[in-house]
Protein backbone atom coordinates (compact mmCIF):
# COMPACT_ATOMS: atom_id res chain seq x y z
CA UNK A 1 0.00 0.00 0.00
CA UNK A 2 1.31 3.43 -0.86
CA UNK A 3 1.21 6.01 1.88
CA UNK A 4 0.97 9.79 1.48
CA UNK A 5 4.71 9.93 2.18
CA UNK A 6 5.43 7.53 -0.69
CA UNK A 7 3.37 9.64 -3.04
CA UNK A 8 5.03 12.82 -1.78
CA UNK A 9 8.52 11.34 -2.29
CA UNK A 10 7.63 10.13 -5.79
CA UNK A 11 6.32 13.59 -6.72
CA UNK A 12 9.44 15.30 -5.37
CA UNK A 13 11.98 12.92 -6.90
CA UNK A 14 10.40 13.07 -10.35
CA UNK A 15 12.19 16.35 -11.08
CA UNK A 16 15.44 15.77 -9.17
CA UNK A 17 18.52 14.76 -11.24
CA UNK A 18 18.57 10.94 -11.53
CA UNK A 19 22.11 10.56 -10.15
CA UNK A 20 21.20 11.86 -6.70
CA UNK A 21 17.64 10.58 -6.55
CA UNK A 22 18.35 7.52 -4.39
CA UNK A 23 20.30 9.44 -1.78
CA UNK A 24 17.85 12.33 -1.54
CA UNK A 25 14.98 9.81 -1.26
CA UNK A 26 16.55 7.99 1.71
CA UNK A 27 17.44 11.20 3.49
CA UNK A 28 14.11 12.90 2.87
CA UNK A 29 12.17 9.79 3.94
CA UNK A 30 14.11 9.70 7.23
CA UNK A 31 13.58 13.44 7.76
CA UNK A 32 9.83 13.11 7.16
CA UNK A 33 9.67 10.13 9.56
CA UNK A 34 11.60 12.17 12.19
CA UNK A 35 9.20 15.08 11.78
CA UNK A 36 6.17 12.78 12.10
CA UNK A 37 7.67 11.21 15.24
CA UNK A 38 8.14 14.70 16.66
CA UNK A 39 4.42 15.44 16.19
CA UNK A 40 3.13 12.09 17.50
CA UNK A 41 5.28 12.58 20.61
CA UNK A 42 3.25 15.78 21.14
CA UNK A 43 0.04 13.68 21.12
CA UNK A 44 -1.08 13.94 17.49
CA UNK A 45 -2.29 10.73 15.79
CA UNK A 46 -0.05 9.32 13.09
CA UNK A 47 -2.09 10.10 9.96
CA UNK A 48 -2.87 13.68 11.08
CA UNK A 49 0.84 14.18 11.84
CA UNK A 50 1.80 12.90 8.38
CA UNK A 51 -0.62 15.29 6.68
CA UNK A 52 0.64 18.22 8.76
CA UNK A 53 4.30 17.45 8.01
CA UNK A 54 3.77 17.09 4.25
CA UNK A 55 1.69 20.29 4.15
CA UNK A 56 4.54 22.06 5.92
CA UNK A 57 7.09 20.81 3.39
CA UNK A 58 4.86 22.25 0.67
CA UNK A 59 4.64 21.78 -3.09
CA UNK A 60 6.91 18.85 -4.09
CA UNK A 61 7.89 20.61 -7.33
CA UNK A 62 9.12 23.60 -5.33
CA UNK A 63 11.07 21.40 -2.91
CA UNK A 64 12.65 19.53 -5.83
CA UNK A 65 13.60 22.87 -7.41
CA UNK A 66 15.42 23.92 -4.24
CA UNK A 67 17.25 20.59 -4.13
CA UNK A 68 18.32 20.94 -7.76
CA UNK A 69 18.99 24.71 -7.32
CA UNK A 70 16.68 25.32 -10.24
CA UNK A 71 15.13 28.71 -11.04
CA UNK A 72 11.36 28.95 -10.77
CA UNK A 73 10.93 31.71 -13.35
CA UNK A 74 10.69 31.79 -17.13
CA UNK A 75 12.93 34.84 -17.59
CA UNK A 76 14.68 36.32 -14.56
CA UNK A 77 15.96 39.81 -13.77
CA UNK A 78 19.28 39.19 -15.54
CA UNK A 79 17.57 38.87 -18.93
CA UNK A 80 14.16 40.50 -18.45
CA UNK A 81 14.98 44.04 -19.66
CA UNK A 82 16.96 42.84 -22.70
CA UNK A 83 14.10 40.46 -23.58
CA UNK A 84 11.49 43.20 -23.17
CA UNK A 85 13.37 45.79 -25.26
CA UNK A 86 14.17 43.34 -28.05
CA UNK A 87 10.56 42.11 -28.16
CA UNK A 88 9.15 45.65 -28.35
CA UNK A 89 11.54 46.64 -31.15
CA UNK A 90 10.91 43.49 -33.22
CA UNK A 91 7.14 43.34 -32.73
CA UNK A 92 6.65 47.02 -33.48
CA UNK A 93 8.56 46.87 -36.79
CA UNK A 94 8.60 43.48 -38.50
CA UNK A 95 4.89 42.43 -38.48
CA UNK A 96 3.84 45.80 -39.93
CA UNK A 97 6.39 45.57 -42.77
CA UNK A 98 5.62 41.94 -43.61
CA UNK A 99 1.85 42.54 -43.40
CA UNK A 100 2.13 45.59 -45.65
CA UNK A 101 4.21 43.70 -48.24
CA UNK A 102 1.81 40.73 -48.26
CA UNK A 103 -1.20 43.06 -48.50
CA UNK A 104 0.30 45.04 -51.40
CA UNK A 105 1.32 41.88 -53.26
CA UNK A 106 -2.17 40.41 -52.80
CA UNK A 107 -3.83 43.66 -53.88
CA UNK A 108 -1.79 43.86 -57.07
CA UNK A 109 -2.05 40.19 -58.03
CA UNK A 110 -5.73 39.67 -57.22
CA UNK A 111 -8.70 42.00 -57.60
CA UNK A 112 -9.97 41.49 -54.08
CA UNK A 113 -9.12 44.60 -52.02
CA UNK A 114 -10.87 43.40 -48.87
CA UNK A 115 -9.17 40.01 -49.11
CA UNK A 116 -5.78 41.70 -49.50
CA UNK A 117 -6.32 43.77 -46.35
CA UNK A 118 -7.43 40.64 -44.48
CA UNK A 119 -4.39 38.68 -45.67
CA UNK A 120 -2.08 41.54 -44.64
CA UNK A 121 -3.59 41.78 -41.15
CA UNK A 122 -3.61 38.03 -40.50
CA UNK A 123 -0.02 37.68 -41.75
CA UNK A 124 1.10 40.56 -39.50
CA UNK A 125 -0.66 38.92 -36.53
CA UNK A 126 0.94 35.53 -37.23
CA UNK A 127 4.39 37.08 -37.60
CA UNK A 128 3.93 38.95 -34.28
CA UNK A 129 2.92 35.74 -32.47
CA UNK A 130 5.87 33.82 -33.96
CA UNK A 131 8.36 36.55 -33.00
CA UNK A 132 6.99 36.74 -29.44
CA UNK A 133 7.16 32.95 -29.05
CA UNK A 134 10.65 32.42 -30.43
CA UNK A 135 12.28 35.39 -28.70
CA UNK A 136 10.76 34.27 -25.37
CA UNK A 137 11.78 30.64 -25.98
CA UNK A 138 15.41 31.62 -26.69
CA UNK A 139 15.59 33.77 -23.54
CA UNK A 140 13.98 31.01 -21.43
CA UNK A 141 16.71 28.62 -22.63
CA UNK A 142 19.45 31.21 -21.90
CA UNK A 143 17.97 31.61 -18.40
CA UNK A 144 18.19 27.86 -17.80
CA UNK A 145 21.74 27.57 -19.17
CA UNK A 146 22.82 30.66 -17.21
CA UNK A 147 24.60 32.00 -20.29
CA UNK A 148 26.21 35.40 -19.85
CA UNK A 149 25.21 37.84 -22.58
CA UNK A 150 28.31 40.01 -22.04
CA UNK A 151 26.33 43.14 -22.75
CA UNK A 152 27.99 46.48 -22.06
CA UNK A 153 27.07 47.94 -18.66
CA UNK A 154 24.45 50.63 -18.65
CA UNK A 155 25.87 54.16 -18.71
CA UNK A 156 24.42 57.66 -18.74
CA UNK A 157 25.06 57.84 -22.49
CA UNK A 158 22.04 55.58 -22.95
CA UNK A 159 19.65 58.01 -21.24
CA UNK A 160 16.70 58.89 -23.47
CA UNK A 161 16.12 62.50 -24.53
CA UNK A 162 14.40 64.62 -21.89
CA UNK A 163 10.63 64.03 -21.75
CA UNK A 164 9.74 67.53 -23.00
CA UNK A 165 11.42 66.85 -26.33
CA UNK A 166 10.50 63.20 -26.62
CA UNK A 167 6.94 63.76 -27.86
CA UNK A 168 8.08 65.53 -31.02
CA UNK A 169 11.31 64.01 -32.24
CA UNK A 170 12.27 64.76 -35.83
CA UNK A 171 11.77 61.08 -36.72
CA UNK A 172 8.17 61.11 -35.46
CA UNK A 173 7.35 64.34 -37.28
CA UNK A 174 8.89 63.06 -40.54
CA UNK A 175 6.99 59.78 -40.26
CA UNK A 176 3.70 61.63 -39.71
CA UNK A 177 4.34 63.93 -42.68
CA UNK A 178 5.26 60.99 -44.94
CA UNK A 179 2.01 59.24 -43.93
CA UNK A 180 -0.03 62.36 -44.69
CA UNK A 181 1.67 62.90 -48.08
CA UNK A 182 1.02 59.25 -48.97
CA UNK A 183 -2.64 59.65 -47.94
CA UNK A 184 -2.97 62.71 -50.17
CA UNK A 185 -1.18 60.92 -53.04
CA UNK A 186 -3.51 57.92 -52.77
CA UNK A 187 -6.51 60.06 -53.77
CA UNK A 188 -5.41 60.88 -57.38
CA UNK A 189 -3.65 57.48 -57.63
CA UNK A 190 -6.83 55.52 -56.94
CA UNK A 191 -8.66 57.70 -59.51
CA UNK A 192 -6.38 56.72 -62.38
CA UNK A 193 -4.49 53.59 -61.37
CA UNK A 194 -6.90 51.15 -59.67
CA UNK A 195 -6.80 48.04 -61.85
CA UNK A 196 -9.96 45.96 -61.45
CA UNK A 197 -9.51 43.44 -64.25
CA UNK A 198 -7.83 43.01 -67.65
CA UNK A 199 -6.97 46.56 -68.63
CA UNK A 200 -10.03 47.88 -66.81
CA UNK A 201 -9.42 50.75 -64.41
CA UNK A 202 -12.06 52.17 -62.12
CA UNK A 203 -11.75 54.80 -59.37
CA UNK A 204 -12.58 53.48 -55.90
CA UNK A 205 -13.91 56.84 -54.67
CA UNK A 206 -16.89 58.40 -56.44
CA UNK A 207 -15.38 60.79 -59.08
CA UNK A 208 -18.24 63.22 -58.42
CA UNK A 209 -16.60 64.03 -55.08
CA UNK A 210 -13.68 65.75 -56.88
CA UNK A 211 -16.06 68.66 -57.42
CA UNK A 212 -17.26 68.75 -53.82
CA UNK A 213 -15.64 67.09 -50.81
CA UNK A 214 -12.26 65.76 -51.98
CA UNK A 215 -10.62 69.22 -52.34
CA UNK A 216 -11.83 70.03 -48.80
CA UNK A 217 -10.36 66.80 -47.41
CA UNK A 218 -7.04 67.43 -49.19
CA UNK A 219 -6.97 70.96 -47.73
CA UNK A 220 -7.53 69.48 -44.25
CA UNK A 221 -4.67 66.99 -44.76
CA UNK A 222 -2.35 69.79 -45.95
CA UNK A 223 -3.31 71.81 -42.86
CA UNK A 224 -2.46 68.75 -40.74
CA UNK A 225 1.04 68.74 -42.28
CA UNK A 226 1.28 72.38 -41.21
CA UNK A 227 0.21 71.33 -37.71
CA UNK A 228 3.00 68.72 -37.56
CA UNK A 229 5.58 71.36 -38.50
CA UNK A 230 4.15 73.82 -35.95
CA UNK A 231 4.27 71.10 -33.30
CA UNK A 232 7.91 70.34 -34.09
CA UNK A 233 8.82 74.01 -33.83
CA UNK A 234 6.99 74.32 -30.50
CA UNK A 235 8.90 71.24 -29.29
CA UNK A 236 5.84 69.73 -27.62
CA UNK A 237 2.05 69.63 -27.63
CA UNK A 238 0.56 72.88 -26.32
CA UNK A 239 -3.15 73.26 -25.56
CA UNK A 240 -3.53 75.58 -28.56
CA UNK A 241 -2.06 72.87 -30.84
CA UNK A 242 -4.38 70.29 -29.23
CA UNK A 243 -7.37 72.52 -30.10
CA UNK A 244 -6.19 72.86 -33.71
CA UNK A 245 -5.61 69.09 -33.82
CA UNK A 246 -9.17 68.49 -32.58
CA UNK A 247 -10.65 70.82 -35.23
CA UNK A 248 -8.60 69.25 -38.07
CA UNK A 249 -9.43 65.72 -36.93
CA UNK A 250 -13.14 66.52 -36.86
CA UNK A 251 -12.91 68.33 -40.23
CA UNK A 252 -11.56 65.12 -41.71
CA UNK A 253 -13.51 62.45 -39.80
CA UNK A 254 -17.00 63.99 -39.85
CA UNK A 255 -17.27 64.42 -43.67
CA UNK A 256 -15.63 61.02 -44.25
CA UNK A 257 -18.03 59.19 -41.93
CA UNK A 258 -21.01 61.12 -43.26
CA UNK A 259 -20.04 60.22 -46.85
CA UNK A 260 -19.52 56.59 -45.83
CA UNK A 261 -22.83 56.25 -44.00
CA UNK A 262 -24.83 57.94 -46.78
CA UNK A 263 -23.21 55.63 -49.42
CA UNK A 264 -21.61 58.51 -51.29
CA UNK A 265 -17.90 57.74 -50.80
CA UNK A 266 -17.41 54.68 -53.01
CA UNK A 267 -17.75 54.79 -56.79
CA UNK A 268 -21.03 52.95 -57.71
CA UNK A 269 -19.33 51.50 -60.85
CA UNK A 270 -16.51 50.12 -58.69
CA UNK A 271 -18.96 48.50 -56.26
CA UNK A 272 -21.01 47.10 -59.15
CA UNK A 273 -17.90 45.54 -60.69
CA UNK A 274 -17.28 43.11 -57.81
CA UNK A 275 -19.80 40.50 -56.78
CA UNK A 276 -18.59 40.40 -53.16
CA UNK A 277 -19.02 44.18 -52.81
CA UNK A 278 -22.49 44.12 -54.41
CA UNK A 279 -23.62 41.27 -52.15
CA UNK A 280 -23.28 43.21 -48.90
CA UNK A 281 -19.47 43.52 -48.90
CA UNK A 282 -19.73 47.27 -49.27
CA UNK A 283 -21.71 47.48 -46.03
CA UNK A 284 -18.97 45.61 -44.15
CA UNK A 285 -16.32 47.83 -45.74
CA UNK A 286 -18.33 50.93 -44.73
CA UNK A 287 -18.73 49.75 -41.15
CA UNK A 288 -15.03 48.80 -40.78
CA UNK A 289 -13.85 52.09 -42.35
CA UNK A 290 -16.18 54.20 -40.18
CA UNK A 291 -15.07 52.35 -37.07
CA UNK A 292 -11.38 52.70 -38.00
CA UNK A 293 -11.73 56.44 -38.65
CA UNK A 294 -13.64 56.99 -35.39
CA UNK A 295 -11.07 55.04 -33.36
CA UNK A 296 -8.01 56.76 -34.85
CA UNK A 297 -9.62 60.19 -34.47
CA UNK A 298 -10.48 59.66 -30.79
CA UNK A 299 -7.08 58.11 -30.09
CA UNK A 300 -5.17 60.90 -31.85
CA UNK A 301 -7.03 63.68 -30.00
CA UNK A 302 -6.77 61.96 -26.59
CA UNK A 303 -3.07 61.21 -27.19
CA UNK A 304 -2.29 64.84 -28.02
CA UNK A 305 -4.26 66.03 -24.96
CA UNK A 306 -2.43 63.52 -22.75
CA UNK A 307 0.96 64.69 -24.01
CA UNK A 308 0.03 68.35 -23.55
CA UNK A 309 -1.16 67.59 -20.02
CA UNK A 310 2.07 65.74 -19.18
CA UNK A 311 4.40 68.39 -20.61
CA UNK A 312 5.97 70.70 -17.99
Amino acid at each position, binding site marked *: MTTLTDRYLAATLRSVPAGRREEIAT*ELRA*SIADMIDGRTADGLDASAAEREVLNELGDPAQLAA*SYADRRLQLIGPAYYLVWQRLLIVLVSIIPAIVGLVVGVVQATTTDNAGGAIGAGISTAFNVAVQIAFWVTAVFAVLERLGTSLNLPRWSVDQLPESPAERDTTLVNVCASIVMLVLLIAVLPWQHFQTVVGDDVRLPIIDPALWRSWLPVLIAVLLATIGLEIAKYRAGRWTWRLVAVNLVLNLAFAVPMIWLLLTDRLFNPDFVAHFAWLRDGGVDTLTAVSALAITTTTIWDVLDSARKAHRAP
Partner: protein
Amino acid sequence: MVSDDVLRTHLQELRRGTVVVASLVALRRPDYGYALLQRLTGHGFPVDANTLYPLLRRLEEQGLLTSEWNTEESRPRKFYRTSDTGEQVLSRLLDDLTAVRTSLTALIEGAPR
Protein backbone atom coordinates in the same frame (compact mmCIF):
# COMPACT_ATOMS: atom_id res chain seq x y z
CA MET B 1 3.21 51.77 12.06
CA VAL B 2 4.05 49.82 8.91
CA SER B 3 1.97 46.84 7.84
CA ASP B 4 2.85 43.35 9.09
CA ASP B 5 3.76 42.27 5.55
CA VAL B 6 6.39 45.00 5.16
CA LEU B 7 7.86 44.24 8.59
CA ARG B 8 7.94 40.49 7.90
CA THR B 9 9.74 41.03 4.58
CA HIS B 10 12.44 43.15 6.21
CA LEU B 11 12.91 40.68 9.05
CA GLN B 12 13.23 37.83 6.53
CA GLU B 13 15.84 39.79 4.58
CA LEU B 14 17.78 40.42 7.78
CA ARG B 15 17.65 36.76 8.83
CA ARG B 16 18.34 35.18 5.45
CA GLY B 17 22.10 34.78 5.64
CA THR B 18 22.19 33.95 9.34
CA VAL B 19 20.77 30.43 8.77
CA VAL B 20 23.98 29.48 6.93
CA VAL B 21 26.18 30.92 9.72
CA ALA B 22 24.11 29.21 12.43
CA SER B 23 24.20 25.86 10.60
CA LEU B 24 27.99 26.00 10.15
CA VAL B 25 28.44 26.77 13.86
CA ALA B 26 25.95 24.11 15.02
CA LEU B 27 27.42 21.41 12.77
CA ARG B 28 30.79 21.57 14.45
CA ARG B 29 29.00 18.80 16.32
CA PRO B 30 27.75 16.35 13.63
CA ASP B 31 23.98 16.08 13.32
CA TYR B 32 21.17 14.99 10.94
CA GLY B 33 18.56 17.24 9.33
CA TYR B 34 15.66 17.06 11.75
CA ALA B 35 17.83 17.22 14.89
CA LEU B 36 19.65 20.27 13.51
CA LEU B 37 16.28 21.89 12.76
CA GLN B 38 15.26 21.37 16.40
CA ARG B 39 18.55 22.70 17.74
CA LEU B 40 18.47 25.81 15.56
CA THR B 41 14.84 26.51 16.51
CA GLY B 42 15.73 26.03 20.19
CA HIS B 43 18.53 28.60 19.86
CA GLY B 44 16.31 31.24 18.27
CA PHE B 45 16.93 30.46 14.60
CA PRO B 46 13.50 29.32 13.40
CA VAL B 47 13.92 27.84 9.90
CA ASP B 48 11.51 26.02 7.59
CA ALA B 49 12.19 22.36 6.91
CA ASN B 50 11.83 22.89 3.18
CA THR B 51 14.55 25.56 3.38
CA LEU B 52 16.99 23.73 5.63
CA TYR B 53 17.10 20.28 3.97
CA PRO B 54 17.98 21.55 0.48
CA LEU B 55 20.37 24.10 2.05
CA LEU B 56 22.35 21.30 3.76
CA ARG B 57 22.78 19.53 0.43
CA ARG B 58 23.89 22.74 -1.27
CA LEU B 59 26.47 23.45 1.45
CA GLU B 60 27.72 19.88 1.08
CA GLU B 61 28.09 20.31 -2.69
CA GLN B 62 30.02 23.54 -2.06
CA GLY B 63 32.37 21.58 0.20
CA LEU B 64 31.46 23.49 3.36
CA LEU B 65 29.94 20.38 4.96
CA THR B 66 30.93 16.73 4.87
CA SER B 67 28.46 13.93 5.45
CA GLU B 68 28.37 10.38 6.69
CA TRP B 69 25.56 7.82 6.79
CA ASN B 70 24.70 6.34 10.16
CA THR B 71 22.89 3.01 9.78
CA GLU B 72 23.13 1.82 13.35
CA GLU B 73 19.78 3.22 14.48
CA SER B 74 16.23 2.29 13.44
CA ARG B 75 16.34 4.43 10.30
CA PRO B 76 19.39 5.40 8.22
CA ARG B 77 20.36 9.03 8.84
CA LYS B 78 22.77 11.32 7.08
CA PHE B 79 24.98 13.19 9.55
CA TYR B 80 26.52 16.48 8.42
CA ARG B 81 29.63 18.06 9.88
CA THR B 82 31.35 21.40 9.15
CA SER B 83 34.45 20.76 7.00
CA ASP B 84 37.80 22.59 7.17
CA THR B 85 36.76 24.73 4.23
CA GLY B 86 33.46 25.34 6.00
CA GLU B 87 35.38 26.43 9.10
CA GLN B 88 37.39 28.97 7.04
CA VAL B 89 34.28 30.35 5.39
CA LEU B 90 32.56 30.48 8.79
CA SER B 91 35.36 32.56 10.34
CA ARG B 92 35.10 35.04 7.43
CA LEU B 93 31.33 35.22 7.86
CA LEU B 94 31.63 35.74 11.65
CA ASP B 95 34.22 38.50 11.10
CA ASP B 96 31.83 40.20 8.73
CA LEU B 97 28.95 39.85 11.17
CA THR B 98 31.10 41.50 13.87
CA ALA B 99 32.07 44.26 11.43
CA VAL B 100 28.39 44.93 10.66
CA ARG B 101 27.59 44.99 14.38
CA THR B 102 30.50 47.39 15.11
CA SER B 103 29.61 49.74 12.25
CA LEU B 104 25.99 49.76 13.29
CA THR B 105 26.85 50.54 16.90
CA ALA B 106 29.12 53.41 15.82
CA LEU B 107 26.39 54.72 13.54
CA ILE B 108 23.79 54.57 16.31
CA GLU B 109 26.08 56.28 18.84
CA GLY B 110 27.31 58.92 16.39
CA ALA B 111 23.91 59.91 15.10
CA PRO B 112 21.87 62.51 17.01
CA ARG B 113 18.46 61.23 18.05
